[in-house]
């Protein structure tokens, strides 16, 4: 059977989508972190590490772990919950993508129109298929790698590592909630793992640890580079607009460089959007197997537009919802892994 996603594609898509999501959560939605975003990212990765280890353990322990895991009526509820979180992520992504586009060039176009265009783009990605989205992710990855090289070398003289100090920035009390929230975002790897395995089309096994490590490296690098470019501004405005400006037009980035950075930024956001929408439609497919994909895409499109039109895409909700997301999405899988581990231990231990 033709794989739904090859191992390489799955790695590329989850790496880019989640790495980007977590990075912009820190850079744009976390102004209170000051320049301690990189530590926040590390803490978030530690928070989600048991999940990656569990998925790899299940892959090694069982033939089809996701299919086994998804037996029973409650999995429909779990799938719907995962789908809702994925939809929420897509809605937030649309909010940011349209905001970035308006900021850069389309200030005269109304936000609802931008939301619709972004939503349709994500839906188009889903309709073409997961491998197409993954293909776009692989292209974006190369584009991003080139952009990073240009950006780093051309701004080399502007980086100041001393701006990373004091090392804990606003203090652990302030860092912890966003770190848990970013952990919640990184649980976005669960739907991908589930639907690829559930559909019996998974190719490569046991690489969630590696992907998490790669995402952590990516997130920490982006946070460090960003933090070394400008000093922490505890007295500055804590708005998204200001943070976006800090990220894209920070007075240090030459305009020629922005030409390189901006396509990379939009490519990453579009991959992130398509990935989340793809996860949502696939999760709904598991919960409601008799529905046609086109209907699921339509429902998801309506839902993400509703989210992006609502205030749910704003910062206080993002942090709160992702704080809830982390235990809600992780605990069932962690418990399942513990049960399987216990069973295996029982099976191998002498009677």
């Amino acid at each position, binding site marked *: 059977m033709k794989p739904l996603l090859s191992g390489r594609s799955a790695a590329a898509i989850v790496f880019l989508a989640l790495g980007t999501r977590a990075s912009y959560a820190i850079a744009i939605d976390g102004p209170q972190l000051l320049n301690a975003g990189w530590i926040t990212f590390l803490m978030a990765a530690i928070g989600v590490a048991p999940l990656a280890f569990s998925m790899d353990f299940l892959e090694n322990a069982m033939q089809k772990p996701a299919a086994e895991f998804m037996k029973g009526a409650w999995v429909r509820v779990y799938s719907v919950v995962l789908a809702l979180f994925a939809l929420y992520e897509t809605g937030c992504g649309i909010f940011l993508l349209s905001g970035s586009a308006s900021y850069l060039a389309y*200030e005269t176009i109304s936000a609802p129109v931008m939301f619709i265009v972004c939503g349709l783009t994500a839906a188009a990605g889903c309709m*073409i298929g997961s491998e197409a989205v993954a293909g776009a992710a692989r292209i974006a990855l190369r584009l991003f790698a080139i952009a990073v090289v240009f950006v780093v070398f051309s701004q080399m003289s502007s980086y100041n590592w001393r701006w990373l*100090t004091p090392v804990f920035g*606003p*203090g652990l009390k302030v860092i912890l909630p966003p770190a848990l929230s970013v952990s919640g975002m990184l649980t976005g790897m669960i739907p991908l793992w589930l639907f690829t395995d559930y559909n019996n089309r998974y190719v490569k096994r046991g690489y969630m640890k590696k992907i998490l490590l790669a995402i952590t490296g990516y997130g920490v690098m982006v946070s460090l580079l960003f933090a070394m470019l400008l*000093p922490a501004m*505890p007295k500055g405005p804590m708005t998204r607009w200001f943070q976006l400006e800090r990220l894209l037009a920070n007075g*240090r*980035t030459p305009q020629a460089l922005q030409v390189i950075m901006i396509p990379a930024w939009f490519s990453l956001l579009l991959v992130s959007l398509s990935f989340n929408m793809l996860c949502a439609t696939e999760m709904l497919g598991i919960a409601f197997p008799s529905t046609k994909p086109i209907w699921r895409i339509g429902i998801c499109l309506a839902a993400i537009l509703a989210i992006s039109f609502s205030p749910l895409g704003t910062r206080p909700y993002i942090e709160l919802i992702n704080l809830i997301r982390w235990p809600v999405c992780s605990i069932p899988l962690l418990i399942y892994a513990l049960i399987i581990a216990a069973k295996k231990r029982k099976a191998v231990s002498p009677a």
Partner: protein
Amino acid sequence: MKKLLLLLLIVPVCLVLPGCSQTRQPEHQAFAISLSADLLDDGQMLIAVQVPTFGGEASPSDKGGGGEGGEGGSSPQSNYAIYSATGASFPEALDLLQSTIPNTLKLTQLKSIVFNDKLARSEQFGRVVEQMVMTYQIFGAASAIMCLGSAREFIENQHPVIGVRLSTSIASALEHYFLGGYTTLTSLYGLNASNKSIYSDPVITVAAVGESDEAEQIKIEPNLMGNAIAGKLPREGSNPNQYMGCALVLGGRVIDILDGRLCQWMEMLNADVKSVNYMCDGISVQLSVLSRPKFDIRLKPDGIDVSLNVKLLAVPLIEAPDEHVLREKIKGEILDLIDRCQAAGVEPFNLAELAAINFLTVQDFQNYHFRDKFCASDVAVTVDIVMDKS
């Protein structure tokens, strides 16, 4: 097939979604290259922009385009128009300006932003800088300049050449002055970031149009440049605009102004400039930093110990000055600079960044009150000079 048709349908839908907005041609935009902001005696804000007029000089219809208190027109020597507007605040004046000039005002190509000294010294300054940074699409890399006298007059008197790229001659001129060490280069965004940060205080370039009465009030010591401050330079030329010296900013407003001589040392100590021309008892030498000037700081609960070591290579242009005299003169000027900064309560030497390493959180660092402790400290300066006798 259905999928393909649906996909094809999305393309025309996306095309019509933005509506029937007009295309935006370059000649329909007013790309400002310089922006000035003057705080007037009555508390009003006068802002002006210098805009290149494509395909010739500004049309007579541009005159009066500034709305209330506004005016427009072109300079005969260059194809630029000046538009201005007055309002109770910067956003109000900008709004008025945008509404009353014939084209869409674009601030994405700004090269310099000039503030008059009254504004720069006022409590409003930090707020105005922040408002500018937050202004949609304003170019944050534009250099921030303080003008002794009218900022509007200053931008009216600059006649940059229109090159292949839009007036890079302003940026090029600013870099030229900076490399001499007599001015600094601080972007609008950098100024705002330093104002809002926990680290060292920013400095901005000082400029003036011709002879300036405001320059008379600045404490300076004549040296090779005569009176080394913009507005008092003993020179003549077709361009009356002068750049020299830098202004110390504390708490979002200018506290003191340093002349070109002290500015040179500021740039050398911060390793922003590596080499400058220097006069010692009428003898010209080129001074280069052999290694980055090294500040050592030791933090104590009740104060800090600061020491500075400067290693310089002196290359005499014709004859060599007395090494001892040169060393003492340089040491004296560096101590003079540090004293001026300490007296003003300003720490512009990037020492806060050095000190912050010793703290775990921003709050701890802020509670230490590093700037106050620096200003109360004695700084030990040693100067090592290697004379190039080849």
